């Protein structure tokens, strides 16, 4: 029996002669699915809040500073314990500031 199991695991190991990496890819798949589905189920009742959120952040800033819509980068990284939403807005350099380095405003939210 032991010997049989040895051959079994050995032979399923050689199966991956087509394809490298080996190991527990199914575990990785489960983790990825759990994470993405947890977020999607949340999104279902707060669907598409990111565009609205972005619009509101921009409107708030635009009250004080003229900003170029093209210079706004929104990045999201979903994690198991915490997600980060990063909004990078490039502000125009006022004349009295240096021309080269426009100050950057970064808003972080979790």
């Amino acid at each position, binding site marked *: 029996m032991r010997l049989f199991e040895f051959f079994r695991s050995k032979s399923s190991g050689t199966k991956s002669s087509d*394809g490298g*990496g080996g190991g527990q890819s199914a575990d990785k798949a489960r983790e990825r699915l759990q994470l993405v589905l947890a977020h999607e189920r949340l999104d279902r009742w707060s669907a598409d809040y990111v565009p609205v959120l972005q619009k509101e952040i921009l409107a708030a800033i635009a009250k004080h500073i003229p900003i170029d819509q093209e210079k706004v980068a929104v990045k999201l990284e979903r994690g198991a314990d915490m997600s980060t939403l990063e909004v990078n807005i490039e502000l125009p350099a006022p004349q009295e500031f240096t021309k080269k380095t426009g100050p950057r405003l970064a808003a972080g939210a979790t």
Partner: protein
Amino acid sequence: MAKIIVITSGKGGVGKTTTTAALGAGLAARGHRTVIIDFDVGLRNLDMILGCERRVVFDFINVINGEAKLHQALIKDKRLDTLHILPTSQTRDKDALTTEGVESVLDQLRGDFDFILCDSPAGIERGAHMAMYFADEAVVVANPEVSSVRDCDRILGLLDSKTRKVEREQERLKQYLLLTRFDPGRVNKGEMLRIEDILEILAIDLLGVIPESESVLKASNLGMPVTLDNKSNAGKAYLDAVSRLLGEQLEHRFLAPERRGLLQRLMGRTA
């Protein structure tokens, strides 16, 4: 100016998304600036296959609706910096794909990329129509099986009539067949359609034959295009297909059953 290639099939579940990810990563790995667009609105999958599902903020439909800029929705692959993904919406439906919207996104991308790959949804409805409408070339994906080949023929008919190239320039777009989930053992036993027969029935050029392979499942588990697995025969077959897309002439490989070791045969396993 980018070349727009649609990956389509008619029949569902034959391997379009797997193929789009594999070809896209293959082209990008050879230094071509490549963007992959998911046209399967409502059933987002390409992000999982490419392993960028945690980084989706905006999508194709947000861009079409003017809710986000294109550059905000594009996701850059972490492994290949020549590869970008435009994910689709998980919450909207295919009616969100307007002709003008799709055209404007493609026009914006054309200047910045060498290849634009469009992953079509199954069927012949709006999503599939929009995925193929602006294409310069088409890769039709099929399995060696009657219903798949039949649906392929239907799609080839649409590619010959319902695309902008045909409507405007009266020019046929280049079409290739990509045969996947090919199992040489079963073909030899007469259980699966033969390649020559399929090519004769469809009268189309063969881009590649991808063997049925466990490495495809593993790659999708990991969120890695199978072309990045350099030990995978399916990956190698896809890389050959990439070369053919780029105009190189290569022999087709992996058409004969793999010789199995004594142990594997005793265990009744197939490679």
